[in-house]
């Protein structure tokens, strides 16, 4: 049975990331009472030691700060200070990471502590490393903000620890913002919008470049000290992983609910609480897999259709258009990995 946590379960230490966000809001003279509204935190006070925040409250805090400051750079500035952070052993593991590969592995393994709201995944294939992000607790309206914040966090951390600006390229699952200067300044000049995926790409050669601050022993010890990530993964993360694994077998709501040890009605209700439903999640995984097949494996429609278990390319083409609003050929021409 697959365990999972939900948006209302308190497990984020309030003294970790939420405290940094409060600090930033204070430094920018945001109205204290407005910032903590609906989060259960107290205005003008450091959160109590051991206090835990549910992801929903943390999301509310970010929404409040974003509204109170109304600046174009809030998400980026919050990202600048987010990683490696001061979150105990896992932050030390990042700080001492000997190279990018291990930093990414650490980030993914301890995501519930390092980046609880947005789930990172990364894979390496064909000389390219792809780090992509997906919503963990159902905050569709806040996704652009979260993506900017988390991408900036990884870029800034790598820049600091590697001692140079790494040549990342960026894909965004959104239309181009009216002004790009904040993206260009905090991320880089290689930006692409309308990609149906929030991803960061880099030449795989950078994965094993040694980092000057790296210390493999210290990192291994810190990882050991961090323990096995004991927290259950977020529902949407667990579901994504399950669907990805089952994607060639035509996963259904009933079968999935059984694997999660719940009834179909319960799973449906839990998903509804995260602002989504089973078909939307399935379509998202299929879109990501199709993009991966196109971009990395250079599959054509026939091959992708066969891989995903479609009868023929026409059916696949129609479905793909429903998922993304674009035909495969159009999207393939537009993306440039």
């Amino acid at each position, binding site marked *: 049975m697959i365990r999972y946590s939900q948006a209302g379960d308190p497990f984020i230490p309030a003294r970790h990331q939420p405290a940094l966000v409060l600090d*930033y809001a204070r*430094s*920018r*003279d945001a109205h204290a009472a407005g910032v903590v509204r609906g989060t259960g935190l107290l205005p003008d006070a450091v959160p109590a030691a051991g206090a835990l925040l549910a992801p929903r409250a943390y999301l509310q805090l970010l929404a409040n700060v974003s509204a109170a400051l109304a*600046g*174009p*750079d809030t998400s*980026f*500035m919050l990202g*600048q*200070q987010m990683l490696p952070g001061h979150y105990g052993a896992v932050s030390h593991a990042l700080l001492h990471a000997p190279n990018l590969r291990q930093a990414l592995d650490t980030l993914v393994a301890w995501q519930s502590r390092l980046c609880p709201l947005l789930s990172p995944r990364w894979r390496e294939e064909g000389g390219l490393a792809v780090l992509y992000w997906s919503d963990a607790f159902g905050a569709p309206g806040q996704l652009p903000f979260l993506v900017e914040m988390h991408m900036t966090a990884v870029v*800034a951390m790598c*820049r*600091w620890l590697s001692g140079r*600006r790494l040549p990342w390229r960026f894909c965004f699952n959104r239309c181009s913002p009216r*002004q790009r*200067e*904040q993206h*260009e*300044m*905090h991320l*880089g*000049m290689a930006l692409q919008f309308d990609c149906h995926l929030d991803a960061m790409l880099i030449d795989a050669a950078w994965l094993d470049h040694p980092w000057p601050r790296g210390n493999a022993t210290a990192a291994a010890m810190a990882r050991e000290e961090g323990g096995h990530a004991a927290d259950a993964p977020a529902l949407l993360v667990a579901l994504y992983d399950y669907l990805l694994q089952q994607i060639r077998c035509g996963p259904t709501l009933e079968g999935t609910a059984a694997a999660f040890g719940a009834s179909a009605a319960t799973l449906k209700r839990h998903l509804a609480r995260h602002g989504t439903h089973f078909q939307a999640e399935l379509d998202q995984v299929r879109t990501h897999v199709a993009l991966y097949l196109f971009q990395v494996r250079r599959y054509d429609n026939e091959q992708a259709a066969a891989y995903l278990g479609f009868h023929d390319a026409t059916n696949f083409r129609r479905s793909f258009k429903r998922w993304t609003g674009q035909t495969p050929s159009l999207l393939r021409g537009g993306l440039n990995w």
Partner: protein
Amino acid sequence: MLRLHRPTLLACALLALLILALYASVGAAKPFHTWDWMDIVSEGGTTVLAACWLVMLLSSRPGGMVTRWLSCGLAAILLGNWADLMDEFFKMGKAFQWNHWLEALVGLGMLTLTVGLHYWRHEQAHLSEHLEKRERLFRDHRAFDRITQLADADYLRRQIRLERQRRPDANCAVALLDIDGFHLINRQFGQPEGDRALQAVGHMLLLNLRSDDLLCRYAGDRFALLMPGASEAEAAVLVRHLCDMVGRMRHHAGATLVPLTLRHACAPADSAPEIVLRQLNLAVA
């Protein structure tokens, strides 16, 4: 800001109550059917609006002479109208004169307000002088950054477009200036020190500009400079001087000396702002 002016507002409310009490004790209440609703609505409306203006004014201004003149004027208009309104509810005997004097407060208030506005013009001229290198030709308060009090990239783009429209044939140059290793200051000393460094560099740059130039905070630690009338060579000299001046600053974070240096890129503003700025960004990154 309003808390600062609590005594003024209290005094105003007390005076209004006093006037009410005065009319109620001396005058005879008019019967309901003789009330002139037209007058009540117009005089009452003016009173309410004057009160709104007074609160808006006080909530947006610190104390001082100009604020005093303006608020006294508005308060007098408010009280004069209030007295006028009381006339609609209470009949005063012919023997009384002071109620007419009270109503004359409106005129006195307008006079006071006018004097206040005159001083306010002076104050505004001083402030504009102070803002000269931060804004040109038009004002947009939403475009200003909280930390450096400089305008943002959007304001810069609009200014470049405006400059090209106004004087298509004249020289005009744009430069981007980026602080070296700024992220290390944030990492080592924390974000508040990073903000202080930005402010210091902003001030240093402002002190060394011509009065026509416009300095903006482009994004993050990148500043943008619009130099109307400067050829590319002149702009390059000016920008090198700016980098030199910033390089000579002795900026401290706590007790630690933090060397600040800039790198720069400079180009004539001869095409659309997006294109010029993109090239400059690539050059300076």
